[in-house]
């Protein structure tokens, strides 16, 4: 099976690509630079460029779409262009190329309106209520991707304007789709939303936390007692691949649906930050900022950063303040049952691996 992984230069994209290479798939990657994934065929370029994308999907049986603009602040138009337009370009090209399976990697923030999420399932993505440009555009792209899911002739769910061209007919190898016969008009889409992915080499969360803590600039918001679900990198990658596989062998159970993916072991913010700091060999945070103040400050910082584009990431945004001071953890029963996946690496084991990587201590 040939799988295109977009955004493979990122932490999670790279992990997914490596996992697929390891089990013998033909892996092609699409990102602006090199993926760094041994054994993968890199295509360099942007997901917003139709020509590049058409080249990347040519001959692919499946797409795992991770490429996105991930940032706490920035130009709304840029978020829109990369996250929404990029997804649309990719979907169009994939359908034209006869791709059968499409895994849209999304984020739980697409359905998060700011309040605590306690033991909830995957609510529908809602661009109107999502907080911040990233979440809003990811919500829009998830809605778009799921709307393209279309069964074989006779039970087409959403015909839509982008009919598959059948160009890839005959290219997919026998048995690729686990014995489920696929008609020409079969485009299977699933959305997977891993929540706060972390692991060795993670520049988004782990290294930022370690770096700030080392400089004494990492406060706890509120009491740090909000319970938060996270996902260890390898588990997230395995979950995404499981979703890809289920689109092959049990498409009707999963297609058109969105799944929140986590370790299923919510921990308090304080616990997680402490664990990461210790693994990184730095002192855990000792000072607190009241949660309400952080939210207000976050809103201000956001506004300031908006008028000075191009600058570094803001130290705090309202979205981040909310993320770090309200609970969000999820009901994992459906995702585990339907994807046939369980996290293999526990939070504690993940911390040990983090410590081994950064030379700190675990526990």
């Amino acid at each position, binding site marked *: 099976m040939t799988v295109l992984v977009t955004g493979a230069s990122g932490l999670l994209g790279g992990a997914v690509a490596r996992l697929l290479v390891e089990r013998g798939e033909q892996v092609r990657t699409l990102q602006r630079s090199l993926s760094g994934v041994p054994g993968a065929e890199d295509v360099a370029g942007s997901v917003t460029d139709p020509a590049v994308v058409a080249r990347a999907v040519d001959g692919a049986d499946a797409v795992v779409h991770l490429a996105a603009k991930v940032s706490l602040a920035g130009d709304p138009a840029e978020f829109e262009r990369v996250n929404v337009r990029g997804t649309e370009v990719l979907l169009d090209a994939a359908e034209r190329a006869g791709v059968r399976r499409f895994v849209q990697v999304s984020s739980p923030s697409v359905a998060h309106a700011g309040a605590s999420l306690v033991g909830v399932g995957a609510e529908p993505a809602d661009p109107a209520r999502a907080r911040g440009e990233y979440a809003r555009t990811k919500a829009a792209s998830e809605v778009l991707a799921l709307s393209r899911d279309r069964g074989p002739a006779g039970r087409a769910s959403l015909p839509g304007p982008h009919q598959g061209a059948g160009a890839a007919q005959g290219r997919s190898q026998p048995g690729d789709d686990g014995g489920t016969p696929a008609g020409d008009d079969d485009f299977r889409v699933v959305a997977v939303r891993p929540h706060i992915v972390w692991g060795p080499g993670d520049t988004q969360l782990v290294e930022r936390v370690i770096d700030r803590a080392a400089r004494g600039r990492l406060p706890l918001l509120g*009491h740090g007692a909000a319970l938060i679900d996270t996902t260890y990198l390898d588990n997230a990658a395995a979950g995404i691949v499981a979703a890809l596989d289920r689109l092959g062998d049990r498409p009707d159970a999963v297609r058109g649906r969105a799944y929140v993916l986590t370790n299923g072991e919510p921990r308090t913010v304080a616990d997680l930050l402490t664990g990461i700091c210790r693994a990184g060999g730095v002192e855990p945070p000792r000072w607190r900022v009241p949660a309400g103040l952080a939210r207000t400050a976050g809103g201000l910082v956001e506004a300031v950063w908006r008028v000075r584009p191009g600058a570094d990431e803001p130290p705090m945004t309202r979205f981040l303040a909310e993320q770090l001071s309200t609970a969000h953890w999820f009901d994992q029963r459906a995702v585990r049952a339907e994807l046939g996946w369980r996290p293999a690496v526990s939070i504690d084991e993940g911390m040990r691996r983090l410590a081994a990587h950064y030379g700190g201590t675990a526990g």
Partner: protein
Amino acid sequence: MVSSGGGTVPPGLPGLDPRFSHVLRVPDGGGAATHGRVAEWHYLDNGPELAARGIEPVGTVLAVHGNPTWSYLWRDLLNLATETAVAEAAATGERPGGVPDAWRVVAVDQLEMGLSARSGGVRSLPERVAGLGAFTDALGLNGPVVTLGHDWGGVVSLGWAVDHPDLLAGVALLNTAVHQPADVPIPAALRLALAPPVHRLGTSTTRAFLETTLALAHPRLPSAVADAYRLPYRTAGDRAGIEGFVADIPATAEHPSRPELDRIAAGVAALKVPALLLWGPRDPIFSDRYLDDLIERLPHARVHRFEGAGHLIAEDVDYAGPVLDWLGSGASGADAFTGPGGPSTSGLTSAPEAPDPASGPAVSPSGSAFRPMWAGLDERAGDDATRSEAAVLDMSGSGPATVSWGALDRQVRRIAAGLHLIGVRRGDRVSLLVQPGPTLTALVYACLRIGAVVVVADAGLGIRGLTRAQRGAWPQYLVGRTTALAAARAFGWPGVRISADPLDPVRRRALGVDHELVDVARAGEGLDLPPEPGPDDEAAVLFTSGSTGPAKGVVYTHARLSALRDVLAAHFGVGAETGLVTGFAPFALLGPALGTRSVTPDMDVSAPRTLTAGAVAAAVRASDARMVFLSPAAILHVVDTAGELDAADRDALERVETFLSTGAPISAEMLTAVQALMPHAAAHTPYGMTECMLVTDITLEGIRAAATAPDDGVCVGRPIVDDAAGGVTISALDADGAATGAPSSAEVPGVLGEVLVRAPHLKERYDRLWLTDVAAERDTPPGHWHRTGDVGHLDAEGRLWIEGRLSHVLTTADGPLAPVGPEQSIERAPGVRRAAVVGVGPAGVQQAVAVVEPPADAGRRDRRAGLAPQELDAAVRASSSVALAAVLVVPQMPTDVRHNSKIDRARLARWADGVLAGGRVSAP
């Protein structure tokens, strides 16, 4: 005067569908002023709705509101009855003879009230009863009919019931009364309302009576609901009916409506149809006194007192569900509503069930015939060889006072006959507020002998708990020492007061004492005793400890009490020569029944920590007893005071053969410590509850053997009663943590579930808590099983392990999780004094959270409420047998008031939920 008014309800009243609203013109047979006219009745009726759907109901509920409400009171019943009928019809299809559980509800507005016509006349009780009959005639109502009434509407509904025996299939009542004893003043609130100037101002001119009634709801009525109640009473003219109704209360014997009230009251006592009494005890008008009167008239009634609910019980609690459940129970045969000619007219509710060796214990566990509780006493007193031997020893005062079998027997007979002489009859309740000792023993056996029902509530409940218990059981007689009599007086406990001590006339008057026990006994000297009660007559109402909600009365029949005696004797080998030392009140009273001498050590039984090792030894020496019962709280102090024992004390204690710790769990360490004092005694600690005092039993050796087992929880040993007569089973939990009722036996060990027990000595039922009774048997296997509310499992060896309360079970994504096992593992961690494991998040995906209390000597920082410091967090996680989402600290566990030992996990769970959602961190 021309009838005015009468209309359908406007839309938008909360909970009331205007489609139920109808008007019927009926020839008015009311007062002289209106005779010959037509009255317009407004009423709510789901009949047309059911007919439109082709549903034929099995019967009709005729609901009558009181004053100053209107048919709006019954909206929930109309809604639920309609929903149930529709659902039932969909499930069963149409059937000739009516859809089971489909009930029509007709709720009238009484004339001059609600949206019914105002004639300007005053309607007396006989006119109201006759008028309701004219209404149902005009409506063409045919049977079977179940009446339902509230407040003075209860009287009117019962009047209709008495007058329509051919249609009547049952009566249901919410707070009401049909009888006003001549010697009891009517409630103060009504007395005031009846005072003429107050009356007019309060009821009609102003809205005070209406507003006061609406203010009786607990919690407060939502304003839209209160407005709906006010709707028909907006002008003084509208309120004239309220005034007329109040004026018609037959408060005195001379009142014109009094003969009708008396006629109805007498007629109710003759009713044999199923009856339901739902009661809100917080009612300043219709207090428990009136409930007791109704129970006396309708002894077969299903009764439920909703603790905390008041006069507006229909607003305070869900009454509609219980009413429909009760109506539905006709289908299962518990109560039959087949109407006239059917079983409902033949005294159905106490109809004997199919014989069941465990549930109908007319035979003792050993298979022998029923032996009454006093049989052992009779035998020992009747035998010249034993007549003068000690039966009860009194250790209070300077030295042991001995009461022989002969003397005890004589005293029991004197008191029994004396009580009968002053009017105590079979079934009458006698509250005994006397400390254990010879007087209490004689009183108990005297009451049992004449069929009076002994009410026992532990002083440990505190004054509030005791008051609640006395009001709930509503004894006709109360026997107490001075302190109890003073409390009875101060807190208005019911019952004719009998002083256990002689009193001077001044004190006697001050305490409102009617009799002195010494006089009662003297008067009974030489008199014949009334016939003995039978095995199925009620014998006792024992109150639970109140650690899991308000204390509940538990009813035991003679057969069940005798079975308790027999199972105790058989399991522990109690014989005539055993001798009992009992520092645990319930067992203190079983000595005479067992035919063996008993002694209570010198102590304050309501304060077990007053018992010393010396007092136990003195009691053992005086009685040469071979068996000692103590509560865990007493044991603690006995062990602490062991140093005061002398050689003779120790010699006496060495002769003890059996030792029982009863009433609450005890640690192996504590049991070991007390066994060191009685080295030749087998130490037992049975597991049980007020509802079934002996369920399982384990010895100290058994506890030690269980310590090496891998099981979670506390091992409480093997069932005392074998499977043939009852036993213990586990009702497995489903994913939501609910007990499914599917029993799992020892053949499938390890299944977590609710502990169900069945035994000949199990309670008969709860007292005046019908819904609790139903809940305690819901989803249990056939037979008289009891849901204990405890969860645990049986192991492969048939031992029962308790793992917590059902309400404390966590429902995680991996299934239900009982807290006790993990708590035990966490309490082994350094820096943890006590631990509670609670769930946060929604049912089915809950996360386990440990809440720990550090030792008292921990630093202030370590005792602060909130997330545990890192070291403690790590220690707790390392020790815990389950994965934890978080470890929280509380400076002190919230506990129940009663024991100061049972952790209030529900409160902790709410607190943890808030903290871990990112909320504020305060102490729980």
